[in-house]
C-alpha cells in the first residue's frame, strides 16, 4: 500500500466571482521511502499540490490519504496536530524565525510535544548534527549563509522525525554549491534515514537527484519519468 495516495484531487480558487481551476483530477501514489520530484512551469499547480499534501490547504474534490489518515476529513485542529507529527516542511525561502537562534528554530516544532527540555535538546543536537551545523546552534539566521539557513530549515523539518518531508523549491534561492549541498542532504535523508520526500522544483538538476519525477502542466499530470 502506498504511503501517500491522492485520488481524483481537484482544487480551484475563487477569484472575483470566478472559479479558477489549479488542479484537475490528479491521482498519485507515493510508496514509503520514495523521493518524488514534482516539476512543471509556474502556475502548473505544483506548490498547491504540496500544500494539499501538507494539510495547509484543502482540495475542492477528491481524497488525500497519508498513512492511515484521510486528511481531507480532519478538522483544522486535528490537521494541525497531524501536521506536527507527520509532516516536515521545507520552504524555498527557509522561513526561519529571525529572533530565534538556529538551535531555537530547530527546537520550535518540539515545543508542541511532551518532551522534556533535555530530550528536546538531544533531538535538536541530533538534527543539527545530521545537517552538519552543530557549531552554528547559537547563531541567528542573519548570521548564517543562505545554504546554512536552508540546512537549519531542514533540521527543523526532520527534528520531529516526521513520516513525510515536503520541500517546496528548497534550492530556488541558493547558489549552485549550496543547492548541491542541500540536495545531497535530502538524498541522504531519503537513502540513509528512509524518509519519504516530495520535492517541488523548477530545476532539472534537482529533479535528477530524485528517484522519480512527475510533471504537472495546467493542473494535470502529463508524464511520469523514472530517473
Amino acid at each position, binding site marked *: 500500500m502506498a504511503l501517500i495516495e491522492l485520488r481524483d484531487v481537484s482544487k480551484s480558487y475563487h477569484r472575483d466571482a470566478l472559479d479558477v481551476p489549479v488542479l484537475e483530477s490528479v491521482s498519485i501514489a507515493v510508496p514509503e521511502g520514495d523521493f518524488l520530484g514534482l516539476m512543471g512551469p509556474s502556475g502548473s499547480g505544483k506548490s498547491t499540490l504540496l500544500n494539499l499534501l501538507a494539510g495547509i490547504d484543502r482540495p475542492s474534490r477528491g481524497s488525500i490519504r497519508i498513512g492511515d489518515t484521510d486528511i481531507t476529513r480532519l478538522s483544522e485542529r486535528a490537521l494541525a496536530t497531524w501536521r506536527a507529527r507527520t509532516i516536515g516542511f521545507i520552504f524555498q525561502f527557509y522561513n526561519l*524565525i529571525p529572533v530565534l537562534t538556529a538551535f531555537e528554530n530547530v527546537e520550535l516544532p518540539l*515545543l*508542541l510535544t511532551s518532551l522534556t527540555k533535555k530530550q528536546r535538546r538531544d533531538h535538536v543536537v541530533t538534527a543539527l548534527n545530521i545537517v552538519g551545523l552543530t557549531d552554528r546552534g547559537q547563531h541567528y539566521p542573519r548570521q548564517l549563509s543562505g545554504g546554512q539557513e536552508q540546512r537549519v530549515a531542514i533540521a527543523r523539518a526532520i527534528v520531529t522525525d516526521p513520516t513525510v518531508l515536503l520541500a517546496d523549491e528548497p534550492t530556488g534561492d541558493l547558489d549552485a554549491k549550496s543547492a548541491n549541498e542541500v540536495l545531497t542532504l535530502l538524498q541522504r535523508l531519503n537513502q540513509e534515514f528512509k524518509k519519504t520526500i516530495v520535492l517541488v522544483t523548477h530545476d532539472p538538476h534537482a529533479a535528477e537527484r530524485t528517484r522519480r519525477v512527475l510533471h504537472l502542466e495546467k493542473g494535470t499530470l502529463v508524464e511520469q519519468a523514472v530517473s
Partner: protein
Amino acid sequence: MKFLGLVLKSARRSKRRTALTVLSVAIAVFLFASLRAVLDGFNAGVEGSSSTRIVTQRSTSLFFEMPISHGEAIKSTAGVQDVTWANWFGGVYKDPQNFFAQYAIEPESYLRMYPELLLSPDEKRAFLEDRTGCIVGDGLARNYGFKIGDKITLQVGIPNYGTRDFDFTVRGIYKSGGAPVDNQSMFFHWKYADERSTQKGLAGWYIAVIANPDQAAQVAAAIDRKFANSPFETKTDTERAFQSSFVGMFGNINLLLGSIALAVVITTLFVAGNTMAMSVRERTMEIAVMRTLGFQSATIFLLIAGEGLLMALGGGIVGALLAWLLVNPRVFPTGGFIPEISVNTTNVAIGIGLSAVIGIVAGLIPATMASRLKIVDALRRVA
C-alpha cells in the same frame, strides 16, 4: 512555561518599539495610580470624618471669621456637648515655598475634641503650659527637621496678624490617629495669635461635639437659627459635609481626575493595540510557518495575547512601583492644605491589574487576526 521563552524573544524583536509600548503603559499606570492616590487623599478626610463633630463657619465663606462669642452660643445649643475653634494662620516659614498649614487653636478643648491628634502626656502638658508653644505633625517634623525645643519663626502671611514675626517653641510632635488629622500641620495657641491681631476676638470656624449623631441635622439647624439675620450668619454642617465642601472648593475632583485617568487609559489602550497589530502584520510569514509546523490557532492566539499581556504587565509594574516610590508625602508634601497624597498597596495592585486589562484588551484583536490567518494565503503573500 515552555512557550515563555518564545514570547519573550518575540517581545524583544523590536526593542525600541517594545520599550516605547512598555513606557506608554508605565506612564498610564503611573498617572492612574497617582490620580487615584489624590482622590483617595481627598476622600479619606471625608470618609474618616467623625459622626459626632459638626463644623460651623460663616455662611458666606470659610475665609470670613466670626466673633468668639459665637462659641458660648453654640455650646448652649441643645444637643451640643463641647465646642472648640480654630483659625487659619497662613504664616511663612523662611520662604513662601515652605508651605504647610498652621492653625491657631483653643488648645485644651481642641485636643480634647480631636483624640486623633496623638501626643504623649508630657508633650501635651508642655504645649498647654507654653503660650508660645506649638505642636507639629511627625511628617512635618521629618520634612523640616523640627525637634522638641526647637524655635520656629513664622513671618505673618495674613495682614490681620500685624507685621511682627511670630516665634514659637516646638513642645510636641504629634502623630495622626485618623484621617481628619494629617501629620503635616502645626498647631499653636489661639490667644497668642489673637493678642497681636488687629481685629481681636475672631474665630475662623467652630467645631462642636454633639451627643447624638442622628440629630446632627437638627442641631446644625438650631445653631444657624441662633445667628440668622445677624452680621455673622453661620452655616453648620457635619464634619463629613464640611470636608466635602472643602474638597468641593477645588471643583468636582472625582469627575476631573476620573476623566483624566480614563482618557489616559483609553489612549494607551489604542497605542498598545495598534503597536501589537503592527507587530502581528510584520510577522505574518512567521505565524504561517508556525501554523505549518503544527501550532494550533489557539496556541498562536495565546502567544500573541501573552506577548501583549507581558508587555503591558511590565509597564504596569514599572509605572505602579514608580508611583509608589515617588508619590508620597516625603516627596510631595501637601502642607496640610489638601490631604496627604500617598500611593498605597491598593493603588499599586489596581494599577498593575489595570495594565493586565490593557494588555488583554489591546492584544485581543491582533491575537484574533493572527490565529485566523489562512496559512496558504499568508505564505503566498510573503513569497
